[in-house]
Protein backbone atom coordinates (compact mmCIF):
# COMPACT_ATOMS: atom_id res chain seq x y z
CA UNK A 1 0.00 0.00 0.00
CA UNK A 2 1.44 3.35 -1.03
CA UNK A 3 0.32 6.33 0.93
CA UNK A 4 1.64 9.77 0.18
CA UNK A 5 0.75 12.70 2.42
CA UNK A 6 -0.88 15.56 0.56
CA UNK A 7 1.89 17.97 1.61
CA UNK A 8 5.40 16.72 2.45
CA UNK A 9 6.36 18.41 5.70
CA UNK A 10 9.80 19.92 6.08
CA UNK A 11 12.14 17.92 8.30
CA UNK A 12 15.59 19.34 9.01
CA UNK A 13 18.59 17.01 9.13
CA UNK A 14 20.47 18.53 12.09
CA UNK A 15 17.61 18.36 14.54
CA UNK A 16 16.28 15.65 16.83
CA UNK A 17 12.59 14.90 17.10
CA UNK A 18 10.07 13.70 19.67
CA UNK A 19 7.06 11.53 18.77
CA UNK A 20 4.85 14.36 20.04
CA UNK A 21 6.19 16.48 17.15
CA UNK A 22 8.64 18.81 18.88
CA UNK A 23 12.16 19.40 17.58
CA UNK A 24 15.35 20.20 19.43
CA UNK A 25 18.55 21.82 18.17
CA UNK A 26 21.51 21.06 20.38
CA UNK A 27 24.62 23.16 20.86
CA UNK A 28 26.74 21.72 23.69
CA UNK A 29 24.51 21.85 26.76
CA UNK A 30 22.14 24.33 25.18
CA UNK A 31 18.93 23.24 23.45
CA UNK A 32 16.46 25.23 21.37
CA UNK A 33 12.96 23.73 21.17
CA UNK A 34 10.01 24.24 18.87
CA UNK A 35 7.25 22.34 17.10
CA UNK A 36 7.72 20.75 13.70
CA UNK A 37 6.32 21.69 10.32
CA UNK A 38 4.13 18.56 10.47
CA UNK A 39 2.70 19.74 13.80
CA UNK A 40 2.04 23.34 12.74
CA UNK A 41 0.34 22.14 9.56
CA UNK A 42 -1.95 19.78 11.49
CA UNK A 43 -2.68 22.31 14.23
CA UNK A 44 -3.87 25.08 11.94
CA UNK A 45 -3.40 28.82 12.51
CA UNK A 46 -1.83 29.38 15.92
CA UNK A 47 -3.46 32.33 17.69
CA UNK A 48 -1.81 32.10 21.11
CA UNK A 49 1.24 30.50 22.70
CA UNK A 50 1.41 29.89 26.45
CA UNK A 51 5.04 30.09 27.49
CA UNK A 52 6.71 28.91 30.70
CA UNK A 53 8.58 31.26 33.02
CA UNK A 54 12.33 31.62 32.57
CA UNK A 55 13.90 29.46 35.26
CA UNK A 56 11.19 26.79 35.10
CA UNK A 57 12.23 23.15 35.05
CA UNK A 58 11.26 21.02 32.07
CA UNK A 59 11.26 17.22 31.88
CA UNK A 60 11.63 15.11 28.76
CA UNK A 61 8.18 14.06 27.54
CA UNK A 62 6.24 16.40 29.86
CA UNK A 63 4.18 19.43 28.93
CA UNK A 64 5.72 22.89 29.47
CA UNK A 65 3.32 25.12 27.58
CA UNK A 66 0.57 25.17 25.02
CA UNK A 67 -0.50 26.56 21.67
CA UNK A 68 -4.04 27.53 20.78
CA UNK A 69 -5.45 26.93 17.30
CA UNK A 70 -8.90 26.15 15.91
CA UNK A 71 -10.60 26.33 19.33
CA UNK A 72 -8.10 23.89 20.85
CA UNK A 73 -5.26 24.23 23.32
CA UNK A 74 -2.55 21.69 22.53
CA UNK A 75 0.24 20.83 24.93
CA UNK A 76 3.82 21.43 23.91
CA UNK A 77 6.01 18.71 25.42
CA UNK A 78 9.72 19.13 26.08
CA UNK A 79 12.04 16.81 24.14
CA UNK A 80 14.74 17.37 26.79
CA UNK A 81 15.03 17.88 30.55
CA UNK A 82 16.64 20.93 32.09
CA UNK A 83 16.05 24.58 32.96
CA UNK A 84 14.36 27.16 30.74
CA UNK A 85 16.88 29.95 30.10
CA UNK A 86 15.00 31.91 27.46
CA UNK A 87 11.52 32.04 25.94
CA UNK A 88 10.59 33.51 22.56
CA UNK A 89 8.81 36.73 23.65
CA UNK A 90 8.01 37.49 19.97
CA UNK A 91 5.33 34.80 20.18
CA UNK A 92 3.21 36.99 22.49
CA UNK A 93 2.55 39.47 19.68
CA UNK A 94 3.18 37.14 16.73
CA UNK A 95 2.01 33.60 17.54
CA UNK A 96 1.73 32.84 13.81
CA UNK A 97 5.54 32.63 13.64
CA UNK A 98 5.01 29.04 14.80
CA UNK A 99 3.22 28.39 11.51
CA UNK A 100 5.32 30.50 9.14
CA UNK A 101 8.74 29.67 10.57
CA UNK A 102 8.50 26.60 12.83
CA UNK A 103 12.26 25.88 12.83
CA UNK A 104 13.63 29.45 12.88
CA UNK A 105 11.75 32.49 14.13
CA UNK A 106 8.99 30.31 15.63
CA UNK A 107 11.32 28.68 18.19
CA UNK A 108 9.62 28.43 21.58
CA UNK A 109 12.11 27.93 24.45
CA UNK A 110 15.81 27.53 25.09
CA UNK A 111 16.88 25.01 27.70
CA UNK A 112 20.07 24.35 29.62
CA UNK A 113 20.04 20.55 29.43
CA UNK A 114 20.56 18.43 32.52
CA UNK A 115 21.21 15.14 30.70
CA UNK A 116 22.56 15.01 27.14
CA UNK A 117 22.08 11.23 27.21
CA UNK A 118 18.33 11.79 26.84
CA UNK A 119 18.92 12.78 23.22
CA UNK A 120 19.26 9.06 22.48
CA UNK A 121 15.54 8.73 23.19
CA UNK A 122 14.71 11.02 20.27
CA UNK A 123 14.40 10.36 16.54
CA UNK A 124 16.73 11.60 13.85
CA UNK A 125 15.30 13.33 10.76
CA UNK A 126 14.97 10.13 8.73
CA UNK A 127 13.13 8.23 11.48
CA UNK A 128 10.90 11.23 12.16
CA UNK A 129 9.98 11.60 8.46
CA UNK A 130 8.94 7.94 8.35
CA UNK A 131 7.05 8.35 11.63
CA UNK A 132 5.04 11.27 10.20
CA UNK A 133 4.25 9.33 7.04
CA UNK A 134 3.01 6.37 9.07
CA UNK A 135 0.89 8.62 11.28
CA UNK A 136 -0.78 10.27 8.30
CA UNK A 137 -1.34 6.97 6.51
CA UNK A 138 -2.84 5.27 9.58
CA UNK A 139 -5.63 7.84 9.85
Amino acid at each position, binding site marked *: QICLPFVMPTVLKDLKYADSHEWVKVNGNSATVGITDHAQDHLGDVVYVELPEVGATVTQGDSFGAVESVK*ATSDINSPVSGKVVEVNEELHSAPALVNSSPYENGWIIKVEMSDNGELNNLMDSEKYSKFCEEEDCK*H
Partner: protein
Amino acid sequence: MAVMGKAREAGLPLMKLVKLRGMPILQQLHLEERLLRTSSDNWCLINDGTSSPTIVMGLSGKLSELVEVKPVLQDHIPIIRRFTGGGTVVVDQNTIFVTMICNKDAVSNVQPFPRSIMSWSGLLYNDVFEGLADFHLRENDYVFGDRKFGGNAQSITKNRWIHHTSFLWDYDVKNMSYLKLPAKAPQYRLTRSHLDFVCRMKEYLTRSEFIERTIKAIGGQFSVKSISSESIDVPSVSEYVHTTRLLTNQEIQEACCTIQT
Protein backbone atom coordinates in the same frame (compact mmCIF):
# COMPACT_ATOMS: atom_id res chain seq x y z
CA MET B 1 -27.17 -4.85 29.84
CA ALA B 2 -27.52 -7.05 26.75
CA VAL B 3 -26.58 -4.15 24.46
CA MET B 4 -23.55 -3.31 26.59
CA GLY B 5 -22.51 -6.95 26.58
CA LYS B 6 -22.66 -7.11 22.79
CA ALA B 7 -20.68 -3.87 22.45
CA ARG B 8 -17.98 -5.20 24.76
CA GLU B 9 -17.87 -8.38 22.71
CA ALA B 10 -17.32 -6.27 19.62
CA GLY B 11 -14.21 -4.86 21.33
CA LEU B 12 -15.40 -1.29 21.68
CA PRO B 13 -13.46 0.81 24.17
CA LEU B 14 -15.15 1.53 27.48
CA MET B 15 -16.54 5.00 28.09
CA LYS B 16 -17.70 6.02 31.56
CA LEU B 17 -20.84 8.16 31.40
CA VAL B 18 -21.65 10.63 34.18
CA LYS B 19 -25.02 12.39 34.06
CA LEU B 20 -25.21 15.59 36.06
CA ARG B 21 -27.88 18.20 36.55
CA GLY B 22 -27.30 21.80 37.52
CA MET B 23 -23.63 21.35 38.43
CA PRO B 24 -21.98 24.80 38.68
CA ILE B 25 -19.90 25.31 35.54
CA LEU B 26 -16.69 26.07 37.44
CA GLN B 27 -17.02 22.75 39.25
CA GLN B 28 -17.73 20.98 35.95
CA LEU B 29 -14.67 22.50 34.27
CA HIS B 30 -12.45 21.64 37.24
CA LEU B 31 -13.69 18.05 37.09
CA GLU B 32 -13.05 17.89 33.32
CA GLU B 33 -9.53 19.22 33.70
CA ARG B 34 -8.75 16.67 36.41
CA LEU B 35 -10.20 13.82 34.36
CA LEU B 36 -8.22 14.86 31.27
CA ARG B 37 -4.93 15.17 33.14
CA THR B 38 -5.08 12.47 35.81
CA SER B 39 -7.39 9.71 34.55
CA SER B 40 -6.62 7.07 31.95
CA ASP B 41 -10.28 6.26 31.22
CA ASN B 42 -12.60 7.57 28.53
CA TRP B 43 -15.37 9.79 29.90
CA CYS B 44 -18.59 11.37 28.77
CA LEU B 45 -20.06 14.02 31.05
CA ILE B 46 -23.52 15.39 30.41
CA ASN B 47 -24.54 18.33 32.61
CA ASP B 48 -28.17 19.24 32.09
CA GLY B 49 -28.09 22.95 32.85
CA THR B 50 -25.76 24.83 35.17
CA SER B 51 -26.72 26.60 38.38
CA SER B 52 -26.59 30.30 37.48
CA PRO B 53 -25.64 32.60 34.56
CA THR B 54 -21.88 32.62 34.03
CA ILE B 55 -19.59 33.90 31.30
CA VAL B 56 -16.94 31.41 30.18
CA MET B 57 -13.96 32.56 28.09
CA GLY B 58 -11.37 30.44 26.30
CA LEU B 59 -7.77 30.26 27.46
CA SER B 60 -6.54 33.25 25.49
CA GLY B 61 -9.66 35.41 25.51
CA LYS B 62 -9.17 39.17 26.08
CA LEU B 63 -11.84 40.31 28.48
CA SER B 64 -12.22 43.89 27.22
CA GLU B 65 -12.69 42.68 23.62
CA LEU B 66 -15.22 39.95 24.36
CA VAL B 67 -17.39 41.05 27.24
CA GLU B 68 -19.52 44.13 28.08
CA VAL B 69 -17.67 44.66 31.33
CA LYS B 70 -19.81 47.41 32.92
CA PRO B 71 -23.15 45.52 32.94
CA VAL B 72 -21.31 42.34 33.99
CA LEU B 73 -19.88 44.17 37.01
CA GLN B 74 -23.21 45.81 37.75
CA ASP B 75 -25.12 42.52 37.62
CA HIS B 76 -22.39 40.52 39.40
CA ILE B 77 -22.05 37.93 36.62
CA PRO B 78 -19.07 35.64 37.28
CA ILE B 79 -16.45 35.23 34.52
CA ILE B 80 -14.41 32.06 34.15
CA ARG B 81 -11.29 31.50 32.05
CA ARG B 82 -11.34 27.83 31.03
CA PHE B 83 -8.49 25.52 30.10
CA THR B 84 -9.66 24.86 26.54
CA GLY B 85 -9.40 27.13 23.50
CA GLY B 86 -12.22 28.78 21.61
CA GLY B 87 -14.58 31.64 22.19
CA THR B 88 -16.78 33.18 24.86
CA VAL B 89 -20.19 31.91 25.91
CA VAL B 90 -22.74 32.82 28.53
CA VAL B 91 -24.22 29.72 30.15
CA ASP B 92 -27.14 29.15 32.51
CA GLN B 93 -29.80 26.62 33.50
CA ASN B 94 -30.88 26.30 29.86
CA THR B 95 -27.48 25.27 28.58
CA ILE B 96 -26.80 21.56 28.15
CA PHE B 97 -23.16 20.52 28.33
CA VAL B 98 -21.73 17.43 26.65
CA THR B 99 -18.09 16.58 27.18
CA MET B 100 -16.02 13.75 25.76
CA ILE B 101 -12.61 12.92 27.14
CA CYS B 102 -10.80 10.21 25.18
CA ASN B 103 -7.52 8.39 24.99
CA LYS B 104 -6.23 9.04 21.48
CA ASP B 105 -5.90 5.27 20.95
CA ALA B 106 -9.57 4.76 21.80
CA VAL B 107 -10.49 6.68 18.67
CA SER B 108 -7.62 5.43 16.59
CA ASN B 109 -8.94 6.65 13.24
CA VAL B 110 -8.78 10.24 14.53
CA GLN B 111 -5.43 12.05 14.70
CA PRO B 112 -5.00 13.99 17.97
CA PHE B 113 -5.18 17.37 16.24
CA PRO B 114 -7.96 19.98 16.41
CA ARG B 115 -9.54 19.60 12.97
CA SER B 116 -9.62 15.79 13.06
CA ILE B 117 -11.28 15.71 16.46
CA MET B 118 -13.72 18.43 15.45
CA SER B 119 -14.63 16.53 12.29
CA TRP B 120 -15.17 13.31 14.28
CA SER B 121 -17.52 15.15 16.63
CA GLY B 122 -19.45 16.49 13.64
CA LEU B 123 -20.10 12.94 12.46
CA LEU B 124 -21.23 11.92 15.94
CA TYR B 125 -23.75 14.75 16.19
CA ASN B 126 -24.90 14.07 12.64
CA ASP B 127 -26.18 10.79 14.05
CA VAL B 128 -27.78 12.58 17.01
CA PHE B 129 -29.82 15.00 14.90
CA GLU B 130 -30.49 12.78 11.90
CA GLY B 131 -34.06 13.18 10.72
CA LEU B 132 -34.75 16.00 13.18
CA ALA B 133 -32.94 19.06 11.89
CA ASP B 134 -30.64 20.42 9.19
CA PHE B 135 -27.51 19.87 11.28
CA HIS B 136 -24.01 20.78 10.12
CA LEU B 137 -20.57 21.33 11.53
CA ARG B 138 -19.85 24.72 9.99
CA GLU B 139 -16.50 26.44 10.53
CA ASN B 140 -16.18 24.58 13.85
CA ASP B 141 -19.68 25.51 15.10
CA TYR B 142 -22.73 23.27 15.36
CA VAL B 143 -25.54 24.83 13.33
CA PHE B 144 -29.07 24.17 12.25
CA GLY B 145 -29.13 25.76 8.81
CA ASP B 146 -26.97 28.83 9.31
CA ARG B 147 -27.77 29.40 12.99
CA LYS B 148 -25.41 28.31 15.75
CA PHE B 149 -26.80 26.31 18.64
CA GLY B 150 -23.63 24.78 20.06
CA GLY B 151 -20.16 26.12 20.82
CA ASN B 152 -17.15 23.80 20.94
CA ALA B 153 -13.72 23.80 22.44
CA GLN B 154 -10.91 21.31 22.87
CA SER B 155 -7.74 20.58 24.73
CA ILE B 156 -5.17 18.07 23.52
CA THR B 157 -2.45 16.47 25.61
CA LYS B 158 0.15 13.93 24.50
CA ASN B 159 -2.15 10.90 24.68
CA ARG B 160 -5.62 12.25 25.42
CA TRP B 161 -8.02 14.92 24.33
CA ILE B 162 -11.21 16.60 25.43
CA HIS B 163 -13.96 17.94 23.21
CA HIS B 164 -16.69 19.82 25.04
CA THR B 165 -19.76 21.62 23.88
CA SER B 166 -22.26 24.03 25.38
CA PHE B 167 -25.63 23.57 23.69
CA LEU B 168 -28.21 26.37 23.66
CA TRP B 169 -31.32 24.45 24.53
CA ASP B 170 -32.74 27.87 25.34
CA TYR B 171 -31.26 31.23 26.21
CA ASP B 172 -32.08 34.51 27.88
CA VAL B 173 -31.82 37.55 25.59
CA LYS B 174 -30.51 39.64 28.49
CA ASN B 175 -27.62 37.22 29.06
CA MET B 176 -26.61 37.39 25.40
CA SER B 177 -26.25 41.16 25.76
CA TYR B 178 -23.25 40.64 28.07
CA LEU B 179 -21.23 39.43 25.07
CA LYS B 180 -19.62 41.68 22.47
CA LEU B 181 -19.48 40.86 18.78
CA PRO B 182 -16.07 39.16 18.61
CA ALA B 183 -13.39 40.54 16.28
CA LYS B 184 -12.68 37.01 15.05
CA ALA B 185 -15.99 35.59 13.91
CA PRO B 186 -16.66 32.73 11.48
CA GLN B 187 -17.29 33.87 7.91
CA TYR B 188 -20.79 32.43 7.82
CA ARG B 189 -21.79 34.73 10.68
CA LEU B 190 -21.49 37.77 8.37
CA THR B 191 -22.29 40.79 10.59
CA ARG B 192 -25.24 39.26 12.38
CA SER B 193 -25.87 40.18 16.00
CA HIS B 194 -26.05 37.38 18.57
CA LEU B 195 -29.82 37.07 18.36
CA ASP B 196 -29.77 36.71 14.57
CA PHE B 197 -26.86 34.29 14.67
CA VAL B 198 -27.93 31.74 17.29
CA CYS B 199 -30.99 29.55 17.66
CA ARG B 200 -32.65 27.46 20.36
CA MET B 201 -32.42 23.67 20.37
CA LYS B 202 -35.79 23.44 22.12
CA GLU B 203 -37.48 24.25 18.82
CA TYR B 204 -36.29 20.88 17.52
CA LEU B 205 -36.34 18.37 20.38
CA THR B 206 -36.79 17.99 24.13
CA ARG B 207 -33.88 17.97 26.57
CA SER B 208 -34.32 14.30 27.40
CA GLU B 209 -34.59 13.35 23.72
CA PHE B 210 -31.33 15.14 22.99
CA ILE B 211 -29.54 13.47 25.88
CA GLU B 212 -30.84 10.01 24.98
CA ARG B 213 -29.90 10.39 21.33
CA THR B 214 -26.43 11.60 22.28
CA ILE B 215 -25.84 8.61 24.54
CA LYS B 216 -27.08 6.29 21.80
CA ALA B 217 -24.72 7.86 19.23
CA ILE B 218 -21.77 7.49 21.60
CA GLY B 219 -22.81 3.89 22.16
CA GLY B 220 -22.11 3.23 18.48
CA GLN B 221 -18.39 3.79 19.08
CA PHE B 222 -17.93 3.02 22.77
CA SER B 223 -19.16 0.58 25.34
CA VAL B 224 -20.97 3.04 27.62
CA LYS B 225 -21.11 2.43 31.37
CA SER B 226 -23.06 4.80 33.59
CA ILE B 227 -21.42 5.75 36.83
CA SER B 228 -22.43 8.14 39.58
CA SER B 229 -20.51 11.37 40.13
CA GLU B 230 -19.71 10.19 43.67
CA SER B 231 -17.78 7.21 42.38
CA ILE B 232 -15.43 9.17 40.10
CA ASP B 233 -11.96 8.13 41.22
CA VAL B 234 -9.53 10.94 40.46
CA PRO B 235 -7.55 13.22 42.81
CA SER B 236 -9.83 15.62 44.64
CA VAL B 237 -9.98 19.33 43.94
CA SER B 238 -7.49 20.17 46.69
CA GLU B 239 -4.77 17.92 45.25
CA TYR B 240 -4.76 19.30 41.73
CA VAL B 241 -3.72 22.74 40.44
CA HIS B 242 -6.32 23.80 37.88
CA THR B 243 -5.76 26.21 35.02
CA THR B 244 -9.48 27.00 34.86
CA ARG B 245 -10.27 29.84 37.25
CA LEU B 246 -12.76 32.49 38.23
CA LEU B 247 -11.59 35.98 37.34
CA THR B 248 -11.30 38.35 40.28
CA ASN B 249 -13.31 41.57 40.56
CA GLN B 250 -10.05 43.45 40.29
CA GLU B 251 -9.24 41.83 36.95
CA ILE B 252 -12.70 42.66 35.61
CA GLN B 253 -12.46 46.24 36.84
CA GLU B 254 -9.03 46.64 35.24
CA ALA B 255 -10.57 45.53 31.92
CA CYS B 256 -13.17 48.25 32.37
CA CYS B 257 -10.40 50.82 32.81
CA THR B 258 -8.50 49.47 29.77
CA ILE B 259 -11.49 50.36 27.60
CA GLN B 260 -11.81 53.84 29.08
CA THR B 261 -8.13 54.86 28.66
